[in-house]
């Protein structure tokens, strides 16, 4: 069964460093997302991406964050200068379209620890 894959599964980085989290969405999907989950808290929406541009973003997704789909298969989340409070599990997700009941499929997550 097709799945969303994410790398790395876990990354430790120093405060102020740049981090890139990578995702390969399900191949025929059209909509791509990043969500995050701080330990012990609920899952929060960061950004959605469609047709090579951001379609929606949350207040969390400030100028420190950016997304890119560089080659038609990968979908990346970049955090320019990490802060301690960026420590969280970051989930990539994708969706085909409304014909699939708007179902969003998640990857296994990338656990980011900022020290």
């Amino acid at each position, binding site marked *: 069964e097709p799945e969303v894959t994410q790398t790395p599964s876990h990354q430790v980085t120093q405060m102020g460093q740049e981090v890139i989290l990578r995702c390969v969405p399900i191949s025929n999907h059209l*909509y791509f*997302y990043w*969500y995050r*989950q701080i330990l012990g*808290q*609920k*899952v*929060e*929406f960061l950004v*959605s991406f469609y047709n090579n541009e951001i*379609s*929606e973003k*949350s207040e969390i997704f400030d100028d420190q964050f950016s997304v890119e789909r560089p080659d038609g298969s990968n979908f990346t989340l970049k955090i320019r200068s990490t802060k301690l409070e960026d420590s969280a*599990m970051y*989930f990539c*997700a994708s*969706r085909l379209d*409304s014909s699939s*009941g*708007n*179902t*969003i*499929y*998640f*990857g*296994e*997550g990338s*656990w980011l620890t900022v020290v």
Partner: protein
Amino acid sequence: AQTVTQSQPEMSVQEAETVTLSCTYDTSESDYYLFWYKQPPSRQMILVIRQEAYKQQNATENRFSVNFQKAAKSFSLKISDSQLGDAAMYFCAAINPGLGTDKLIFGTGTRLQVFP
């Protein structure tokens, strides 16, 4: 605005018994979709079941079924014949295209323990 509420932080069930997890949501639109996701200790987010709001019939996936009460804005998950592998965090979530958005809104989750 759209909100999803899960009022049970923790639930427990004996193996082979049935348990129901509660979820309520708030939306003024008629075009929306509801989901239950399971998050085991590995923290992966796994789709359990989905329900389209325009469908009156409750969704069912093997041992998992929902009780969708549209007027009450309630969307509970029933797990029958509970298994040890069902132990996880369960999140109720909604997506509301009628509001011009496709982001999932999550509840705070219910931690399910399954006892042998």
